[in-house]
């Protein structure tokens, strides 16, 4: 195992090392309790009836037969919920209209996608619950589904929502209702002049399919509404507070009446931020007075929980013969699914983010279609928009006969560069990533063999900060329990505890991190947006500094000296003035910890931070592929992922994020797609036919961590989770072009798509 610290982290004791994660033993012994593992006395099992149609008006729902079935205790529909207003609630890193949140949880007058929840039952046993939903009779008036983003935008298209008008950024609304929920635009410079300056202009259109986050754990939600009016919720969520703040208004409860306990979570990638089952479990519990557990099966997960947007995109980009990019025009139309809220905004802001292009226009459209409401998925919006722009950039380099890596270096944003959306970069590692890729053994090697090709692409993601809370107490033996509100999806207990340990000067093993419920820790935003190690680490740092101050005060009391004469060193030695006999006075952390209880009591440090200086992340990926020209199949032969992590707190988990992001990106590139028939029926709603990469589909993924510390964080942390999903698709596309000379224009670049673009093209 690699244990050496990087040059950047050698100055630290804990940061940059690879301790065993604190929750590890529970997770290799099967002891860890995930959401579906919960069992409560008297617990009922729930099940959801879902729409067989993509677009239909609900004429009537008859639940009487289901209610009459032995063992069924409650059946609910949308009508059983309090009326939801159009007030806007915080849904994680974004906001949503409460009535749309409710309607997505359970349909009101219309079903808007196949799998849309229509009714839910609670029964003594999940087999009975399953039987019961078969007895619910729903009459539908089936409507024409809207399944393509371009069709949806056309005047005269069937409408999903009669009340939806196109909103512009200036707050104005279109006169007529539309499926286009909003339009945004960023501009910079003079587009026409920029294209006039170009020697070569390339324009391409792209289509990408919806793709699912694909976490292995299906959604679950368990609720117990008690006689005193309080509601307990246990669920696998990326944000316990978001669940609280969604469930409470849907049931017209105060947040103080709702306690959400985040269970261990089996993956999320953004998809476990919205609520789906929790409000249903809560209402069923309210109706029955008993705890109710709801779980989804895999088909439900794929039909009804947030994938990322399918898109239609058009990019025109021009460059001078020397490789200088002069202008770029980007058109992005994103499927939002059934309700507004695609990640087109972020996609638009990321589209050209790595490059300093003087003349730009980026238009984005958020469009509703009869497909599941999209949810955040790892760098939401960026894998699509950057696929389009990186692909055109690669073609420009090819057309100009330039090295695509050199051309990127030539146009790369550096500190002080400004994006079209107005952001100005601080310290970033854009160029450093490109240079590390250039120096990598992979880029330096020569690729040989027929039908093989190499591709490269760059990726950018903002990373976010926001609110995190923590507290920790010092036990008499010098160990420190650390209390957190961030769900641990990939080792963040460890990465946050390490920052506390570093600040206190103790070992990572002496910190014991715990993730607790919404009543037991201060407000903490979702685990997502690559924010957790950044913001949680900030909170841990502040918590540790609070402890350090209090320990200095305590030592001063013991030594009967001024606090200003006591200093807590980074070596965890608390030093005071000399005593009356002229001897040095000092405590180790453990020595002072042992005296706390007899010198005034325990010490608790706490912090609540709300930081946004999260520091953008860049990544450069290199991939070699081999294409079977007879079958269209692409095999990934070799993969190198370079990424700026700021500071790699736990390098093994940084590598893991990079490798995992590559895996999802390669899946999106090659095989993952939502395959609908013309009626809007998703035909591949299983892990058999929604094809995520298996162990046999990937080579080892070589991670190269670049560390350009983020000046906006005490330890220089930048988020690492999201950016690695962005470069794989455009890099693979370039590699395919390099191998067989065909430039694909859709995702996924499946064997079928490649055959259609090659040997079957003329048929």
């Amino acid at each position, binding site marked *: 195992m690699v244990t050496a610290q990087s040059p950047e982290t050698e100055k630290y004791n804990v940061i940059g090392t690879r301790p065993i994660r604190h929750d590890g033993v529970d997770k290799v012994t099967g002891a860890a309790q995930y959401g579906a593992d919960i069992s409560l006395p008297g617990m009922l099992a729930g099940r959801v009836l879902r729409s067989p149609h993509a677009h239909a008006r609900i004429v009537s729902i008859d639940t009487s037969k289901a209610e009459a079935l032995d063992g069924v205790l409650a059946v609910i529909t949308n009508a059983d919920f309090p009326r939801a207003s159009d007030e806007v609630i915080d849904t*994680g890193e974004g906001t949503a209209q409460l009535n749309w949140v409710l309607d997505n949880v359970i349909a009101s007058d219309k079903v808007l996608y196949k799998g849309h929840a229509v009714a839910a039952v609670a029964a003594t046993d999940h087999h009975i619950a399953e039987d019961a939903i078969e007895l619910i009779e729903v009459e539908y008036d089936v409507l024409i589904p809207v399944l393509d983003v371009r069709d949806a935008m056309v005047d005269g298209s069937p409408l999903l929502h009669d009340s939806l008008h196109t909103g512009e*950024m200036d707050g104005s609304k279109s006169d007529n209702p539309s499926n286009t929920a909003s339009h945004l635009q960023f*501009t910079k410079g003079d587009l026409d002049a920029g294209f006039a300056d170009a020697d070569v202009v390339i324009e391409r259109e792209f289509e990408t399919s919806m793709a699912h986050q694909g976490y292995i754990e299906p959604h679950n939600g368990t609720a117990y509404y008690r006689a005193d009016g309080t509601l307990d919720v246990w669920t696998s969520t990326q944000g316990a507070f978001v669940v609280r703040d969604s469930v409470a208004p849907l049931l017209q409860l105060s947040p103080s009446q709702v306690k959400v306990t985040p269970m261990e979570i089996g993956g999320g990638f953004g*998809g476990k931020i919205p609520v789906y089952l929790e409000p249903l479990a809560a209402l069923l519990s309210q109706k029955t007075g008993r705890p109710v557990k709801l779980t989804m099966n895999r088909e439900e997960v794929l039909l009804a929980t947030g994938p990322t947007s399918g898109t239609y995109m058009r990019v025109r980009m021009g460059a001078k013969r020397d490789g200088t990019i002069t202008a770029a025009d980007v058109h992005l139309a994103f499927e939002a699914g059934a309700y507004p809220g695609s990640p087109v905004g972020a996609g638009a802001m990321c589209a050209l983010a790595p490059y300093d292009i003087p003349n730009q226009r980026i238009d984005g459209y958020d469009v509703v279609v009869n497909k599941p409401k999209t949810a*955040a998925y790892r760098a939401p919006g960026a894998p699509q928009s950057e696929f389009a722009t990186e692909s055109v950039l690669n073609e420009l380099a090819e057309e100009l006969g330039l090295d695509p890596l050199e051309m990127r270096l030539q146009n790369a944003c550096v500190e002080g560069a400004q994006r079209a959306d*107005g952001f100005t970069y601080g310290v970033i590692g854009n160029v450093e990533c490109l240079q590390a890729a250039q120096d990598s053994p992979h880029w330096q090697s020569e690729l040989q063999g027929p039908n093989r090709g190499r591709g490269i692409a760059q990726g950018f993601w*903002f990373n976010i900060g*926001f609110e995190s809370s923590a507290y920790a107490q010092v036990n008499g033996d010098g160990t420190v329990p650390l209390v957190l509100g961030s769900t641990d999806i990939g080792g963040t207990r460890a990465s946050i505890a390490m920052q506390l340990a570093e600040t206190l000067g103790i070992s990572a093993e002496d910190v014991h991190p715990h993730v607790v419920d919404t009543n037991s820790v201060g407000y903490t935003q979702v685990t997502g*947006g690559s924010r957790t190690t950044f913001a949680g680490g900030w909170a841990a740092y502040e918590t540790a500094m609070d402890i350090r101050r209090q320990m200095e005060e305590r030592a001063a009391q013991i030594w009967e000296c001024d606090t200003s004469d006591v200093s807590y060193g980074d070596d965890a030695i608390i030093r005071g003035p000399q005593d009356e006999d002229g001897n040095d006075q000092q405590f180790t952390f453990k020595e002072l910890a042992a005296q706390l209880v007899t010198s005034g009591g325990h010490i608790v440090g706490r912090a609540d931070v*709300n930081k946004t200086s999260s520091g953008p992340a860049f990544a450069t990926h290199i991939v070699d592929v081999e294409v079977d020209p007879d079958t269209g199949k692409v095999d990934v032969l070799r993969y190198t992922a370079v990424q700026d992590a700021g500071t790699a707190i736990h390098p093994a988990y940084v590598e893991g994020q990079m490798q995992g992001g590559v895996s999802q990106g390669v899946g999106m590139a090659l095989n993952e797609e939502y395959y609908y028939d013309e009626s809007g029926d998703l035909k591949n709603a299983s892990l058999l036919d929604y094809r995520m990469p298996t162990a046999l589909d990937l080579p080892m993924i070589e991670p190269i961590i670049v560390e350009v510390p983020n000046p906006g964080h005490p330890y220089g942390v930048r988020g690492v989770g999201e950016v690695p999903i962005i470069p794989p698709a455009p890099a693979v596309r370039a590699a395919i072009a390099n191998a067989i000379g065909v430039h694909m224009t859709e995702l996924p670049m499946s064997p079928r798509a490649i055959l259609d673009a090659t040997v079957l093209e003329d048929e």
Partner: protein
Amino acid sequence: MVTVLIPQPLRTLTDGESVLTAEGHNIRAVIRDLGRRYPELAERLVNGSRIGRGISLAINGDVVSTGLITKVPEGAEIAIVPQISGG
């Protein structure tokens, strides 16, 4: 004095101006100052005690997370961007 960058679609509210200057120690004060010249813009940027629906403000590249009371350093550059979410 701070600089406020106006994205293309909001220039309907600023008589086409793309860059404005304003005074103010925090976001609320800056928006109030902008409102003296461009009342529709100020209306768009504020929603009660919050920043306007669906948009975020960024001060020197960092998205504002503490709302209208967020301090604005002298000479800062403020960008108006759509809300971003992460996975």
